[in-house]
């Protein structure tokens, strides 16, 4: 499971999102509805383009609340997108309902983070995996059993002796395999894996990641792997997209993004990963404040409120995704001077050494430090 195979650019597209937006409208009370005040909407997902081909695993990383799970849920039509399009093998499924939606649900599956509550404790492993077949009215009881056994084989769990056990008898890793088997039994073409290993112990994470990798190759699956842990993405993904506050800020082949991150946010995200070399602590820039609320998205670049390089241009104009190298795109004025040329009056950001200490607190702490030493 070293670097993942290259993806044939002519491989058929399985899923494609175009300028996808999902906003959550706050529920208005009777009083504000009478007065005509509309509650603010949370722009959880705010204009995302994404393409996943057959046999490809796309990694989606970002902090909690950046909209990565919303994107996953929107792609499997658990949330109704506010705007934009979702194409499944070229067919627009953004607004389909009824039988066509059920047909889409047959081919797109989702795996959730929590292996402990994702299986109904009252059902046996066999019943859990059989359920999607019942929902879609597939096969006779005997045929369904065949399919369940095959799905268990795919996730490397011997059916013999396990099919009649209950989820409580299994470990976290085994439960997550069962959840994957349940997703596979319908023979889907597209799987969203939403933090599938983040609740598992480190020693078994690798086996679940490896399984996803092998399944995607064997079955030609398109996989969207969602994670806040950028380090795991490097092992199984062909392509990585980094999200911040509802938008993709950087994307590219996973080697490119992981080895040469361009966006200041991605750089900081990579910096945050502790190195395994003892005693070697990299110098880390402290970011100001927290991620802004999706209810009040800043006007310019969404990262400008925390970015150490931010200038007036960043606060006023939102950068567009610009092509850097092959398939490597970044949303930052440092790498794209189009906005700077259009607004010559605003100072543009430049990459370089950061002089500003991030937070006033740090200054006070430094002063304290001096006092304590004396």
């Amino acid at each position: 499971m070293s670097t993942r195979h290259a993806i044939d650019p002519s491989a058929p597209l399985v899923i494609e999102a175009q300028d996808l937006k999902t906003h959550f409208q706050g529920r208005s009370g009777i009083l504000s509805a009478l007065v005509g005040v509309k509650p603010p909407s949370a722009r959880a997902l705010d204009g995302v383009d994404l393409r996943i081909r057959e046999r490809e695993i796309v990694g989606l990383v970002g902090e909690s609340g950046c909209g990565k799970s919303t994107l996953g849920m929107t792609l499997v039509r658990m949330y109704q997108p506010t705007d934009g399009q979702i194409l499944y093998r070229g067919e627009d499924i953004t607004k389909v309902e009824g039988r066509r939606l059920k047909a889409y649900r047959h081919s797109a599956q989702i795996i959730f983070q929590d292996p402990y509550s994702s299986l109904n404790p009252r059902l046996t492993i066999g019943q859990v995996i059989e359920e999607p077949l019942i929902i879609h009215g597939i096969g006779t009881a005997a045929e369904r059993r065949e399919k369940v056994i095959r799905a268990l084989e795919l996730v490397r769990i011997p059916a013999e002796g396990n099919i009649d056990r209950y989820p409580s008898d299994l470990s976290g890793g085994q439960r997550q395999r069962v959840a994957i088997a349940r997703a596979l039994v319908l023979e889907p073409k597209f799987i969203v894996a939403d933090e599938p290993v983040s609740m598992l112990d480190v020693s078994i994470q690798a086996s679940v990641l490896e399984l996803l990798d092998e399944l995607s190759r064997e079955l030609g699956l398109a996989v969207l792997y969602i994670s806040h842990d950028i380090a795991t993405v490097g092992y199984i993904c062909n392509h990585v997209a980094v999200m911040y506050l509802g938008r993709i800020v950087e994307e590219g082949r996973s080697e490119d993004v992981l080895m040469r991150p361009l966006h200041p946010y991605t750089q900081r995200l990579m910096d945050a990963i502790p190195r395994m070399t003892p005693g070697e602590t990299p110098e880390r820039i402290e970011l100001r404040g927290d991620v802004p609320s999706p209810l009040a998205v800043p006007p310019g670049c969404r990262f400008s409120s925390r970015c150490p390089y931010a200038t007036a241009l960043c606060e006023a104009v939102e950068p567009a995704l610009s092509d850097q190298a092959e398939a490597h795109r970044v949303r930052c004025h440092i790498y794209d001077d189009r906005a700077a040329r259009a607004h010559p009056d605003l100072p543009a950001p430049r990459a370089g050494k950061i002089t500003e200490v991030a937070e006033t607190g740090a200054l006070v702490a430094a002063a304290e430090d001096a006092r304590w030493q004396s």
Partner: protein
Amino acid sequence: MVAVASPRFGQRPASPATLAELEKLTERLARKPAAHLLVDGLSIGYSTLRGRFHAVEDVSFEVPAGTNLGLVGESGCGKSTVVKTLMGLQPEATQVSGRALLDGQNILGLDETALRDVRWKRMSLITQSAMNSLDPVYCIGDQISEAILAHEPVSKATAWARAEQMFALVGLPAGRLYEFPHMFSGGMRQRAVIAMALALNAGLLLADEPTTALDPIMQSQIMTRIRGIHAHLRCSMILVTHDIAVVAETCENIVVMYAGKVAESGPTAEVLESPLHPYTMGLKNAFPRLPERGAPRQPLISIPGVVPNLLLPPAGCRFASRCPFATEVCHRVTPPVVQVGAQRAACHHTDRAAEFRVAAARPETWRTMRGAV
């Protein structure tokens, strides 16, 4: 953000008298030496409906004054139980045996009054979920100054000024002392808890998964803070975590626990560079890392099998069922603790560790055990 005025203190500059008292308090606290902790043969047992079991068995380690110790292991290995018991927070009817000497005094089995004197003052705890250690109905400043007042004979104003000092140390503006826990974000709350734990400059700091619930960036920011604070407060610290990389960056010494027992301990650099115990080797290879430029990519390896049920602990080595190097003796005899240089490992085959390390870096070694899902 606008500070909400506290009815009790108001927001006004501290008086000269307060400042003088604060200076004295600060000096007094700064003179506190770092604590030395020696844990010796600690066993912690529970009785459950399904029988009695030992969550922790015969754990021994030492925290020399002024050093950091990382206590690592996977869920259910007993690392948090150790810390809770040291703080005297174990549930009633827990059987504790062994000794834990804090500067020579055994702190296991102290009664409530004696414990109160030890907690906060000599030993303080940073918990995993900050929301549970803060009271939602009091403002944060009140909670920190209450803790100070309970142990130090100073005025309220001085205690508040000390709380401001602590907030500055963790990088929070003093004005936010007037706010309530729910007004803080997760990262800020965790910093407030750290400020509270530091307020009395305890000689030993116990940090139980202090960053687990946070985002990676916030996690690294908090850990940077903790490291900085540790460097200049010169206290001792035990950091409990499942993340060996954090320990690699932060701690001089490491204790690796598996299924309630210590698998390996020693200086972090040596343990992670040349592990003696196959479990440490597996854990290290299972940890996802960023690709390094030019270097060949290390494969990610998982350890097959599951942690044994502690209600029915297996005979011999507890890791044997998952160990690719296990021999007949491993399944039969509890391994002795072997000292190699500064490292100690509970393994029968420490003499073959060099050979194991090479083999453990290959995924095939572990894959042969795949039969046991």
